[in-house]
């Protein structure tokens, strides 16, 4: 990853993360070398740890370290703005959307300066679409019924996964479907969501 002309790689990240008061050598090794590459909570923890670098005291660094730490702090701010709206349950909707907008704007400039060394084209496109969709969701809800809440946490694919699970469960060993069967099972899956008081949005346990 290249930010502000500075190369940031795993080893460099490790060197600076260890300066954080709440990190130890072991905890950083675990964060940077997850046993399961799809361990989402751990990935979020790593992203938040990079976000913590914003608060690092810079007074004791030499100029070349300062250059690196500034690049890391830009990444930290970027990651912080990206994850906070989805993981910090204390935020109001306005704060969430402001963070997302901040992320989109930061990302745009970093991408214009560093291109794919900053982020792959696909990841850039996807992350910008994520922000755009969140704003579309808000605008749609304002038109439909502004008194209702906007749950950004629902814009993930958890709901889709649940629905898929329920459709698949109905098939038991016969899980392949044609269009007609799929329609029936989808309808039944929606009934299941409602009748088990889970709600389609899984609002109640």
């Amino acid at each position: 990853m290249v930010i502000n002309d500075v190369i940031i790689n795993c080893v460099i990240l490790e060197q600076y993360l260890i300066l954080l008061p709440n990190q130890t050598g072991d905890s950083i090794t675990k964060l940077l070398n997850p046993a399961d590459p799809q361990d989402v909570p751990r990935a979020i923890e790593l992203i938040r740890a990079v976000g913590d670098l914003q608060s690092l005291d810079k007074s004791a660094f030499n100029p070349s370290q300062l250059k690196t730490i500034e690049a890391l702090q830009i990444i930290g701010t970027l990651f912080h703005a990206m994850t906070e709206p989805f993981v910090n349950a204390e935020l109001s909707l306005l704060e969430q959307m402001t963070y997302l907008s901040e992320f989109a704007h930061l990302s745009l400039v970093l991408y214009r300066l560093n291109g794919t060394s900053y982020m792959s084209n696909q990841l850039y496109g996807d992350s910008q679409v994520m922000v755009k969709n969140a704003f579309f969701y808000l605008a749609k809800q304002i038109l439909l019924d502004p008194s209702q809440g906007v749950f950004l946490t629902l814009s993930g694919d958890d709901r889709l996964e649940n629905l898929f699970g329920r459709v698949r469960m109905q098939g038991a060993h016969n899980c392949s479907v044609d269009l007609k069967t799929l329609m029936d099972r989808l309808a039944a899956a929606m009934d299941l969501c409602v009748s088990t008081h889970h709600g389609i949005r899984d609002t109640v346990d």
Partner: protein
Amino acid sequence: MEHCDHLKPAAWKGEISAHGCNPHTAWSSGCARAESVLRSYHVPVHYTDIFSHSDIDMLRPFGGGVYPGISTDPDPSVGVISETVSDSHAPVEDDGDEDFEDENDIEVNVNMDDILDEPPASPELEGQAGDDWIEHDGHKFHKSSLLRIIFGLYFVPKSKERLERVRAYTMEPSKVEADEPLVGVSLFVLGDLFTALVRTGQTVALAVFQSTSITHKGRKVTSVSAAELVLEGSDINISGQVLHLVTPSTASTTFLELSPYNSPPSHSHTLFWTGDFNAL
């Protein structure tokens, strides 16, 4: 309490009703925050300038109608599905949807043309067409496995787009060696400066680097012993970024760049780093 990747609406404590949030306010205050953050880290930025071009937006950062990360090619996975759908739907009677019917016909015709353009296959091959296996020199080979081997990484039965969107982790975690005692040993640490001769074309120059990675016997490490570094047999690779150095000029305030064409004046041995890195 759910993990942070499965938060439920009930767990949210902040005020999130839609009327409490004006999208324009959120958007512009986010923009202002991004601008002040980048300024504080010495990245010059003017969002009003950037967005003054009518064809630049978040999804098209360079304008010109180019959307990064969005492929204009048809999704290969969708292509496969539509083919099988058109095949399996052939015997189904007309459902009265004229538009859909027409679209399907066009697709089928295109496929027919493609097939007709190909040279006729040999009779043996045609005989084997319905078979998953192909015979050669008395051995049987699985056709799709052969294709996968021949086309290697580029032959992916499902949509390749999906995987490209995940920045890869190295599957094998890098082996981190136990911290060696730091006392009494002179170490070369990641981020330290070093000098090396650099050749570009016919020109050779002395450059000052900041190290960005150290590889010792094929492993990435954060430090190596300085004594080992000078040994010829030690298997250590160091890569780094070239510092952009300037000499302070006594006569004027303009800086002279240290480059092969513009050697530093002999009366000064002090070099200043501009804070930037050079590309060769």
